[in-house]
């Protein structure tokens, strides 16, 4: 047996915008074991339920993450709505769905850009982010914010998106879809890209299930599990089949995410065609009492929201389990046996979001 050594990776590392630390136990150039440690940016957002009432808490939930901000607001609102037995009007559900898919598109394109940056393909990175910018502009037109949207509220949404605006978005998405096809081709067919992604970081179906992975990371290993198929919000009324791949390497993860972007375009098209007219919110009376656990599919995977209320203005306990937290166990498994040079790429392929993990 050759000599073992430990190489620290992170918390500051060029591919990581956020701090996570990995102790890589190496044997020559191969990783034998990876020991993650987190906790560098804990903000204690969950504890703020003591200070902010249950309506104001939506703003705090949104600030858990900058990329999935919409999803966090949505998940929290859904949990409280279930506790209070509020039925959200149909139009609000459709708009929530459309916005969720828009955030999926921008999150996945952001990830594609980071991936390209990770393997040093700068022009592909810039091109991806140029496309993503258009989604952010649409978000700003619809909600007034580019990162923090403040459009969710308990009982519906704050602002309606008119049908004209939706039709305009549809046109822009159609154009974007065309442009994205070129980029997707480069990601999936380019020789240089393939040499970095193919046959590294395998995770088998069994391992992915056992380690409780979620999101595109899980689906790339052949498990067809997508929380959207439980039909929350308007997903139940849309035609939708989870994207997945049987291979389970980095390439499969890229492929699944690219397929999901195109699927999101399709879901938006369906939702815009079906959206009913009507109210966008219902008045909220009284205070929540009871507990509820809800799951939604964030761009990065399944996020769990737990709310326990005691009938007063302030909620007793709010708990968020984010997708990256679930995927960290899978990450340590994929790192076993890979080359040191591949570690940054493999860390990227779970689409890590450490800020939300630590909240």
């Amino acid at each position, binding site marked *: 047996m050759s000599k073992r050594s430990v190489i620290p990776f992170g918390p500051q590392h060029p591919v990581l915008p956020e701090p996570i630390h990995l102790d890589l136990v190496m044997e020559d150039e191969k990783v034998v074991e990876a020991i993650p440690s987190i906790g560098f940016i804990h903000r204690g957002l969950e504890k703020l339920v003591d200070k902010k009432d249950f309506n104001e808490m939506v703003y705090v939930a949104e600030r858990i993450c900058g990329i999935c901000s919409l999803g966090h607001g949505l998940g929290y609102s859904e949990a409280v709505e279930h506790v209070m037995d509020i039925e959200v009007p149909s139009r609000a559900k459709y708009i929530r769905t459309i916005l969720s898919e828009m955030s999926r598109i921008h999150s996945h394109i952001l990830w594609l850009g980071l991936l390209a940056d990770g393997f040093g393909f700068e022009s592909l990175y810039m091109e991806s982010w140029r496309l993503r910018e258009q989604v952010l502009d649409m978000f700003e*037109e619809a909600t007034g*914010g580019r990162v923090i949207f*403040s459009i969710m509220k308990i009982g519906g949404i704050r602002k309606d998106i008119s049908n004209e605006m939706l039709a305009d978005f549809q046109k822009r998405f159609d154009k974007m879809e065309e442009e994205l096809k*070129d980029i997707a081709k*480069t990601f999936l067919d*380019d020789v240089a*890209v393939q040499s970095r992604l193919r046959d590294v970081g395998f995770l088998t179906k069994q391992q992915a299930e056992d380690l409780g992975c979620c999101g595109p990371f899980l689906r790339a290993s052949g498990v067809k599990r997508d929380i959207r198929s439980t039909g929350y919000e308007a997903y139940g009324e849309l035609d939708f089949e989870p994207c997945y791949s049987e291979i389970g390497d980095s390439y499969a993860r890229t492929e699944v995410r690219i397929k999901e972007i195109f699927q999101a375009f399709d879901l938006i098209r369906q939702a815009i065609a079906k959206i009913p007219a009507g109210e966008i919110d219902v008045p909220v009376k009284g205070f929540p009492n009871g507990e509820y656990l809800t799951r939604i599919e964030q761009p990065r995977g399944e996020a769990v929201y737990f709310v326990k209320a005691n009938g007063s203005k302030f909620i007793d306990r709010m708990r968020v389990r984010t997708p990256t937290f679930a995927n960290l166990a899978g990450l340590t498994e994929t790192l076993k046996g890979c080359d040191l040079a591949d570690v940054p790429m493999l860390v990227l392929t779970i689409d890590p979001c450490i800020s939300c993990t630590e909240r």
Partner: protein
Amino acid sequence: MAIINFNKTVLHNLISKPATRLYPFEERVYPERTRGHVENDMDVCVLCGLCSIKCPTHAITVDKAAKTWSIRPMSCIQCRCCVDNCPKKCLSMAQKFQEPGPEKVTKTFHQTEKAIAAQEALMKAAKERAAAAAAAKAAAAGTATPAAPVQKPTE
């Protein structure tokens, strides 16, 4: 081949104009809904204090005695709660973002003469209405009932 495929995009980007704005020379046109910063029309504000109660970050302070309305822009999270809840609709969300600065400031605005006069006129009218209503009630009930207590002005 795939490399050639992306070369097309690169060449296209090389000859087309930049995707970014030449910032200091070209200012951004914000969409209508952009939440930049909160503005208050002090000609209309009646200092009711509802905005400060509704603000999740307690960024607004209303001082009724000094007749001032102040906001700490660094605390404001641009959530639009105050704007949506203002009964006089004097608050608005301006599209332009707050200018950067070297220190945290508190912006204080005084209620204008116009607003004070309007508010006093309203109060007076409300008082008169209440007195008239009380007198009418007393007259209707006859002399048997003692004078009805003066109702609180509703404004």
